[in-house]
C-alpha cells in the first residue's frame, strides 16, 4: 500500500533550516493498522502530508496505493482518505452540506454520496446533528464529523493525524470504538499518528516510533516492549537487607537498578515473564534471610521503549 525511500523534508524559516523529516523508509501492506508514535515536532504530520501529496518532499520518493505521489498526486488523492490534525469541516457550513459536498468532490453521484453519508452519520453517532452548523459542534463531535468526511468515498487507505488529541479519555475510547467499527465495515488500511502511548499500545497492530524525523523503531507493540524494555521485577527491602538482596537479584536477572523507598530500598531487575518469575525469586530471597516488604511485577510500556531508545520519556513532552 505504501512504499517510501529516504523520504525527507526540510523547511526554511527565515535563516533557520528545520529538518522535519530526515529520510524515512517505510513499507505498509494492505490491511495494516499502523501508528506513528512520537513526541510533538517529531515529523509525524509532515510525513503524513507528504504521503497524501499535500506537501512535496525535499528528497526521496513515495508511492501510495501503487502510485507515485510526486508524479501523479491527483490519482493518489482519489484513492485515499485524509483526516488532518485541524478541523476538516468548514465552520460556516452545516454538517450534512459538508458531507454531501465532500462526496461530490470525490466524484460520487448525489445518491451515492447521500447513501454513504447517511451510513456514516449513523455509525458515528452524528444523526441528530445533520442540520447543525459545524461551528456549534463540540470538539468530539467535530472530530467524528472529520472522520466521516475522510470516509465518505470509502477509501481503501485512510490517514488519520492525531485523531483523538484534546479529547477526554471517555471520548477517546468512544472514538476508537467508531474507528474500529468502520474498519470492520469498510475494509481499510489505516495509518495514524499519535503522541498518546496507551493509544498506540492498545489500538495499533504495528507501532512506528518516530523521533527527530527518523524512524527509530518499527514493530508490534508486544515485540518492541519485549525487545527494547522487557518485564521488570521490583522488590522493596529494609536497608539492612539491601546488600544481601542486591547480591541475589544480580543472579536472577539483569539491569539491576535501585532507588530509595519509604520502607527502605526498592531494587528492580529485568527478567522475562516477571509475574511468573516472582514466586521463585521471593522464595529464594526469604531463604537468604531477606525480609521482602513489597513486590511488583511490571510489564513494560511503550514509554519504557522510548526511554530505552532515546534516553527521554515521551510523557515529558505532554502538556
Amino acid at each position, binding site marked *: 500500500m505504501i512504499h517510501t525511500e529516504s523520504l525527507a523534508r526540510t*523547511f526554511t524559516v527565515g535563516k533557520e533550516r528545520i529538518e522535519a523529516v530526515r529520510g524515512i523508509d517505510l513499507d505498509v501492506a494492505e490491511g495494516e493498522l499502523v501508528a506513528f508514535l512520537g513526541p510533538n515536532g517529531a515529523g509525524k504530520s509532515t510525513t503524513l502530508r507528504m504521503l*497524501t*501529496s*499535500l*506537501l*512535496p518532499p525535499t528528497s526521496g520518493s513515495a508511492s501510495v496505493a501503487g502510485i507515485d505521489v510526486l508524479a501523479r498526486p*491527483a*490519482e493518489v*488523492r*482519489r*484513492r*485515499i482518505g*485524509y*483526516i*488532518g*490534525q*485541524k*478541523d*476538516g*469541516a*468548514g*465552520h*460556516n*457550513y*452545516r454538517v450534512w*452540506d459538508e458531507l454531501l*459536498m*465532500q462526496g*461530490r*468532490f*470525490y*466524484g*460520487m*453521484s448525489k445518491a*451515492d454520496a447521500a447513501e*454513504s453519508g447517511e*451510513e456514516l452519520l449513523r455509525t458515528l453517532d452524528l444523526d441528530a446533528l445533520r442540520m447543525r452548523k459545524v461551528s456549534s459542534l463540540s470538539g468530539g463531535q467535530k472530530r467524528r464529523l*472529520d472522520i466521516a*468526511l*475522510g470516509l465518505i*468515498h*470509502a477509501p481503501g487507505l485512510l490517514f488519520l493525524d492525531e485523531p483523538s488529541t484534546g479529547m477526554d479519555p471517555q471520548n477517546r475510547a468512544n472514538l476508537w470504538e467508531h474507528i474500529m*467499527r468502520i474498519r*470492520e*465495515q*469498510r*475494509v481499510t488500511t489505516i495509518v495514524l499518528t499519535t503522541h498518546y502511548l496507551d493509544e498506540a499500545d492498545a489500538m495499533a497492530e504495528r507501532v512506528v516510533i518516530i523521533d527527530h524525523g527518523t524512524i527509530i523503531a518499527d514493530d508490534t507493540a508486544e515485540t518492541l516492549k519485549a525487545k527494547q524494555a522487557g518485564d521488570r521485577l521490583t522488590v522493596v527491602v529494609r536497608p539492612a537487607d539491601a546488600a544481601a538482596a542486591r547480591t541475589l537479584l544480580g543472579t536472577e536477572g539483569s539491569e539491576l537498578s535501585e532507588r530509595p523507598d519509604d520502607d527502605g530500598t526498592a531494587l528492580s531487575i529485568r527478567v522475562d515473564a516477571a509475574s511468573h518469575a516472582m514466586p521463585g525469586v521471593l522464595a529464594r530471597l526469604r531463604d537468604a534471610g531477606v525480609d521482602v516488604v513489597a513486590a511488583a511485577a511490571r510489564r513494560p510500556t511503550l514509554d519504557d521503549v522510548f526511554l530505552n531508545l532515546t534516553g527521554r520519556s515521551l510523557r515529558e513532552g505532554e502538556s
Partner: protein
Amino acid sequence: MAVLTLPAPARTNVVTDVGHVWWRETLTILRDPFSLIFSLLQPLVFLGLFGPLLSGLAGNGELFGGSSLQWFLPGVVVMITMFGTSMTGSTLQFEIMTGAFERILATPLSRSALMIGRALKELTPLVVQAAIITLVAIPFGFVLYPLHVLVGLLILGVFGVGVGALSYALAIAARKSEWIFWAVQQALLFPLLILSGMMLPLETGPGWMQVVSKFNPLTYIVDAERVLFAGSFGDVTILRGLVAALVTAAIGLWVGIRSIRRATL
C-alpha cells in the same frame, strides 16, 4: 457487518469540479441570505449618491455625448466585480486557519477549479446586482441593450476569475496574518479602480495618470464595458477588453496554482 461496496473512484473533470466548488461556496449565501441583501443595497447607494454628483460635474447630465448614467453604470458594475472578486481570498483565509482548506486540498479536485469555483461564487451575486441597478436606472434615462450587457458580463466574469485567483494566492501568502491580506487588497484595489477611469474620467486628469492607466488592465475592461453598455459591438475596444480579461485570468490562475502547490500551510 456488511461490507459497504461503492463504485470505484469516479473520474472527475474541471467543469464539474468548478460546479462543486461554486456550489459549496454558494451554500454559505443560501443558508444566510441576509448577507446578500446588504450586498445588493451597496451598489444602489453608490449609484444613487455618486450619479447625481457626476451629472452635476458634466453639466446638464451630458458626458461624452451620452447620459451620465450610461457612462457611469458600467463603471459601477466593474467596481462591484472588483470589490467582490478581490475578496475571494478572505473566506479562504478563515478555512486555511481552521483546517477545511487542507481537507479540500486532499480531495482530487482540480487546483484551478478551487480558484475558479470560488471566484464564480463572488460573481454570482454580481449578476443579480447588475440586473437590479440596471432596472432601477432605466426610469432615469438608462437605455438597456441586453445582449451587449450579457457580453459585457461574460468579459467581466473572465476578468473576475483572474482577480479572484490572485486574491486566492494572496490569502495563501498572507495566511499567517489576516491584516496583511486586507492591507494588500486595499492598497491595490483603490489605485487600480481610480487609475482605470472607472469613477471619474481620466481625460481631465494629469498626463502621468493617463500614462499609468495604459498599464492597468482594468482600464481596458472599463472601456470595453462602456462601449458595450452603450450598445455597440463594432469597436476594437471590446477586443482589447477581452484580451485584458483573458490575460488577467491566465496570469491569475498560473500564480494561484503555483502558490497552492508551494503552500506549506
